[in-house]
């Protein structure tokens, strides 16, 4: 079926619905004119319409009422009085001891259990309860139904609506005016109590039989904020009747007393002329807005056929009514009282204050409106943000005393238009099919900017800059970069390549490169930006400091510690001076500086700075915000570097969840946070938790950032470290190979960036027994370091080489390598540093190999203490130390002590798979400890099983397997009982 044919089917369908069911068949036959398929279509639709199908009747209201409405709160419902846009009104009564109270209960449609709404309603009720005036229907009570729908109980007023009253009693013009004066008095009273009605219309103005007016529905009004003198928060969503609504109301602007004056003008127009000023029967919202805001109503007198009445209205009354109906609130009567006053002057034959609205004035307004070039649709949002946006921009450019106002207004309007477009995604005529993505919306916006604003390059540049940021935050990096580059080109043309504008664009471009992992390009852009800005500014500003800090981080990771340190130092000085100490930016720069010191091996300075950075930022404060998330991440990382893994973990976890709330799942910032969290969990020995985090992060990173992105490498290596720790050395080695290949490709073969990857990649090789390969990697890593100042990387390399020599059984070589590493640690690390502890463990291992357990025990006890302080149980690293300690006790002949220690080791190692050699070694040692205590029967299975595990893992010829074999031989050699 085609849409055209569907049109035709509907036509007949709706026509049939209008008539008696028995006559439908005839109608279908006639209309389908022999087209059997058409007839079937209509008939089946009619049938489906009558039956209760799967798609039930969705109630007209947004929320369903309770199935049977007997009571609303304590009020028994008698009947429905009326239904409005936002509420249904019921006549209800409450019976108490000796009294029956009749009320009108207004049940709001919008409503559900939301504490904020409750609070608002409560304060609303308190205010309205105080609004006592004989002309205002009293608010009796209010509350919410058990379903959470709010209701108001109001005084029930019997009488007629204002227009009906006037018509039925055939009031004269002057009687109508007198009645209207009463209305004005009541409205003015409410205005003086700072309450605006917002929905004045004849049906809300009741006149009792004795001719007194009573206004209903002040329940929708909202207290004027006395402190600001402007209208504050509305009750729920703005709700009004289009025919009586003011231009500011339909545009969604702030609504105050002038809006009520406008509505009074409409009411006056209606009771005088018998017609409404604006015809908007079944108009769409856009039409309503156009009519109310742009159409100038005819003079009321023109609408009157009776000549005598027309003459009464011509002149003063026309002028008064039209003044009340002025589009611009400032041109209306200043108050309901002033309106009343002019009517009184008219009644007394005095000259009225209102002056006719001149054509020149209206024309002037029209031209003004169109000169701004803002589409009608954008007006809504312009009112919301246009003015203030200009202010913001001007503040940023306080130095440039050019006449920017008109320029900035244009830009503001443009950004606004774009934003309005973004929010128009629900408009089917404007969408591209049904899958409109943020990206498509942005693309369309950019196209428009290209198309319509080619003559205003400065505006284009500004918008490109803004939109580039949005793209970047959606992870659409290529597109972001394109736009940033466009902005730069425009700035170069307009202001010159040495301008501050150009430097700001360079900064953005640098950021794009950095996000994409293109660090060299980023460094280049940042360096240029810093140079331009330093030269152009007499005093460094915060943007310069920001760029310096960003540059510092990139330089740091490129191994340019010296220059990085300079950048951080300069940035820090500016930021401290201009921002104070307590800003996250300062903490970040401090972190960079600290990390640089750390890299250089200046651990004391680094630690001091870490302390400062931690103290400077109060982590607990703040809602989800990119800056807060970054600060959390940094502080978490600082804690990790300071080996406060446990304290860091919740911060990193929080950073992950905050960034996940702010960005898409595969956004670089989310991936970065995942990596850091996963690394921390690994350090905590929580492998089972860490692995999915790292796997997930790596998968996202490879997919959306690319295999060669630094974050992908970080994650890949972190996962490999985890795999190494849990005995999956083959997988780990493969991962390191990938990561090394990527880095070699990017940096070349001899870049400092390769050092740590080479060092870490040696570990799984050692575990897998590929000792010479591991050695080669370690040697090339050591060769890349600075031979004059040995640092932490050298220490790590030496330590791994010690492991190799221990496995080879070359104890003397191990001893000399270890001594070298120990001297670095003594110079640069504190005693409890994890690397110091690592070396201690190796030293103890060497003593054990040399059969000097008495030397090993105190070292291991110290190491154990240090490790337990930072690694919560169960932690395999603690397990390793306990294993060595157990072996040492065993060698000392302390069987029982060894047994206890080895049981502890087993417990700490429980995160490792059962086939891991350490697990087997501990079993074997435990067996030996039992044997030493004369318990061979218990010992035997442990010794056998342990040997098997170790043999399978490390190979039958390995030193550890040979030792386990010897232990088993001891029990076999001992005489069976």
């Amino acid at each position, binding site marked *: *079926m085609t*849409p055209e044919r569907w049109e035709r089917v*509907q036509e007949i369908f*709706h026509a049939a619905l209008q008539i008696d069911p028995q006559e439908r068949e005839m109608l279908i036959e006639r209309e389908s004119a022999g087209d059997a398929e058409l007839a079937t279509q209509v008939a089946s*639709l*009619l049938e*489906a*319409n009558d*039956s*209760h*199908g*799967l*798609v*039930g009747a*969705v109630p007209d209201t*947004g929320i*369903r009422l309770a199935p049977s409405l007997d009571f609303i709160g304590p009020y028994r419902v008698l009947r429905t009085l009326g239904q409005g846009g936002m509420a249904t009104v019921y006549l209800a009564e409450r019976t108490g001891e000796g009294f029956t109270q009749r009320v009108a209960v207004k049940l709001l449609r*919008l409503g*559900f259990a*939301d504490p*904020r709404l409750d609070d608002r309603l409560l304060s609303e009720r308190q205010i309205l309860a105080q609004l006592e005036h004989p002309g205002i229907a009293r608010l009796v009570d209010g509350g919410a139904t058990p379903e959470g729908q709010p209701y108001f109980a109001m005084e029930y007023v019997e009488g007629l609506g204002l227009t009906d009253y006037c018509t039925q009693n055939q009031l004269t013009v002057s009687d109508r005016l007198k009645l209207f004066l009463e209305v004005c008095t009541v409205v003015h009273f409410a205005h003086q109590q700072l309450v605006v009605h917002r929905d004045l219309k004849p049906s809300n103005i009741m006149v009792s039989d004795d001719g007194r007016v009573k206004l209903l529905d002040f329940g929708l009004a*909202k207290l004027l904020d006395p402190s600001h003198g402007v209208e*504050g*928060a509305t009750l*729920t*969503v*703005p709700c009004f009747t289009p025919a009586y609504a003011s231009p500011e109301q339909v*545009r969604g602007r702030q609504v105050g007393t002038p809006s009520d004056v406008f509505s009074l003008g409409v009411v006056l127009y209606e009771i005088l002329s018998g017609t409404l000023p604006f015809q908007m029967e*079944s108009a*769409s*919202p856009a039409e309503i*807005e156009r009519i109310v805001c742009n159409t100038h109503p005819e003079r009321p007198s023109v609408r009157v056929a009776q000549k005598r009445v027309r003459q009464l209205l011509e002149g003063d009354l026309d002028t008064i009514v039209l003044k009340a109906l002025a589009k611009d609130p400032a041109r209306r009567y200043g108050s309901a009282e002033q309106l009343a006053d002019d009517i009184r002057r008219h009644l007394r034959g005095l000259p009225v204050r209102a002056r006719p609205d001149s054509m020149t004035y209206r024309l002037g307004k029209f031209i003004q409106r169109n000169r701004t070039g803002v589409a009608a649709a954008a007006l*809504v949002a312009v009112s*919301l*943000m*246009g*003015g*203030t*946006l200009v*202010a*913001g921009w001007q503040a940023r450019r306080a130095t440039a005393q050019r006449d920017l106002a008109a320029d900035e207004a244009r830009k503001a309007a443009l950004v606004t238009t774009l934003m309005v477009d*973004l*929010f*128009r*995604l*629900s408009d*089917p005529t404007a969408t591209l099919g*049904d899958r409109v993505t*943020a990206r498509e919306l942005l693309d369309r916006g950019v196209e428009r900017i290209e198309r319509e604003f080619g003559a205003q390059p400065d505006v284009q540049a500004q918008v490109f800059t*803004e939109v580039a*940021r*949005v793209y970047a*935050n959606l992870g659409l990096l290529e597109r972001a970069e394109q736009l940033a580059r466009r902005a730069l080109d425009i700035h170069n043309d307009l202001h010159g390549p040495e301008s501050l504008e150009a430097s700001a664009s360079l900064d953005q471009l640098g950021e794009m490169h950095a996000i994409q992992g293109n660090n060299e390009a980023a460094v280049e852009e940042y360096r240029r930006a810093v140079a331009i800005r330093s030269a152009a500014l007499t005093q460094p500003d915060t943007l310069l400091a920001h760029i310096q800090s960003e540059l510092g981080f990139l330089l740091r990771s490129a191994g340019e510690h010296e220059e990085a340190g300079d950048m951080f130092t300069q940035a820090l000085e500016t930021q401290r001076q201009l921002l104070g100490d307590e800003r996250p930016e300062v903490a970040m720069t401090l972190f960079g500086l600290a990390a640089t010191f750390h890299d250089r091996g200046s651990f004391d300075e680094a630690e001091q700075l870490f302390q400062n950075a931690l103290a400077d930022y109060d982590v607990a404060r703040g*809602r*989800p*915000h990119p800056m807060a998330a970054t600060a959390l991440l940094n502080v978490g990382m600082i804690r990790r570097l300071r080996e406060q893994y446990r304290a860091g973990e919740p911060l990193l976890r929080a950073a992950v969840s905050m960034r996940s*709330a*702010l*960005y*898409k799942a595969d956004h670089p910032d989310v991936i970065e946070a995942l990596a850091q969290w996963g690394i921390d969990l690994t350090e905590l020995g929580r492998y089972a938790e860490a692995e999915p985090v790292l796997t997930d992060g790596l998968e996202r990173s490879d997919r959306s950032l690319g295999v060669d992105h630094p974050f992908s490498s970080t994650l890949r290596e972190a996962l490999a470290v985890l795999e190494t720790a849990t005995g999956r050395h083959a997988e780990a080695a493969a991962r390191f190979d990938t990561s090394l290949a990527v880095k070699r490709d990017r940096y070349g073969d001899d870049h400092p960036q390769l050092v740590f990857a080479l060092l870490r990649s040696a570990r799984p090789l050692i575990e897998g027994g590929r000792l010479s390969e591991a050695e080669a990697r370690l040697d090339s890593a050591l060769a890349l370091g600075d031979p004059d100042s040995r640092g932490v990387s050298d220490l790590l390399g030496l330590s791994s080489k010690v492991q190799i020599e221990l496995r080879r059984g070359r104890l003397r070589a191990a001893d000399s390598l270890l001594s070298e590493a120990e001297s670095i640690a003594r110079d640069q690390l504190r005693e409890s540093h994890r690397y110091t502890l690592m070396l201690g463990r190796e030293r103890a291992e060497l003593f054990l190999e040399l059969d000097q357990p008495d030397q090993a025990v105190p070292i291991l006890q110290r190491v154990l203490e240090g490790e337990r302080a930072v690694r919560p149980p169960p932690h395999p690293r603690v397990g390793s130390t306990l294993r060595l300690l157990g072996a040492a006790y065993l060698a000392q002949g302390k069987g029982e002590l060894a047994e206890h220690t080895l049981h502890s080791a087993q417990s700490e190692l429980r995160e490792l798979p059962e086939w891991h050699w350490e697990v087997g070694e501990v079993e074997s040692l435990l067996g030996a400890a039992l044997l030493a205590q004369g318990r061979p029967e218990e010992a035997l299975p442990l010794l056998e099983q342990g040997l098997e595990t170790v043999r399978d893992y490390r190979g039958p010829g390995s030193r550890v397997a040979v030792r386990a074999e010897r232990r088993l031989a001891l029990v076999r050699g001992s005489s069976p009982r």
Partner: protein
Amino acid sequence: MGSDVTQVLIELGQGDRAALDRLLPLVYDELRRLAEGQLRRERVGHTLSPTALVHEAYLKLVQLDRIDWKGRAHFFGACAHSMRRILISYARMKKANKRGAGKEHVPIENVVLAAQEQPAEVVALDEALTKLEQLSERQARIVECRFFAGMGVEETAAALDVSPATVKRDWTTARAFLNRELSR
């Protein structure tokens, strides 16, 4: 999270460039989060209607007193379509998981509940709706607004910028069409 679309708009107005960054992800993700949270909840008795979900998103994202009625309608309209996608993908998954769990045909009143309890029906509804889309885009949009965001006639009219009378008429047709398709 207390992020606030309105506030973002206003902050943007005050020249806070960073506000722009936060706007889009908020609108898109909030609803998904709410709906998914809802769908994960096992106890059926606590399942919210789409209306409530969308209102919740609205309350969370927009300060009621600072946005105009058209902004609200557009917001809801946007939610309607997202809701459809969210619920349909959920229902597909659910349907795959509980193949052949023969359920009696009960009218779909709460589409969130239905996505859990009658995934097959919800998927069928989506398919029928896709058919309708080809005949009349507007009618499909109206069904989305009414059904997946629980919007009233007036709101739907405002969101789609058509008259309420058109919405009522289209809704009648669309419902008959869907019921016919689903009973086949």
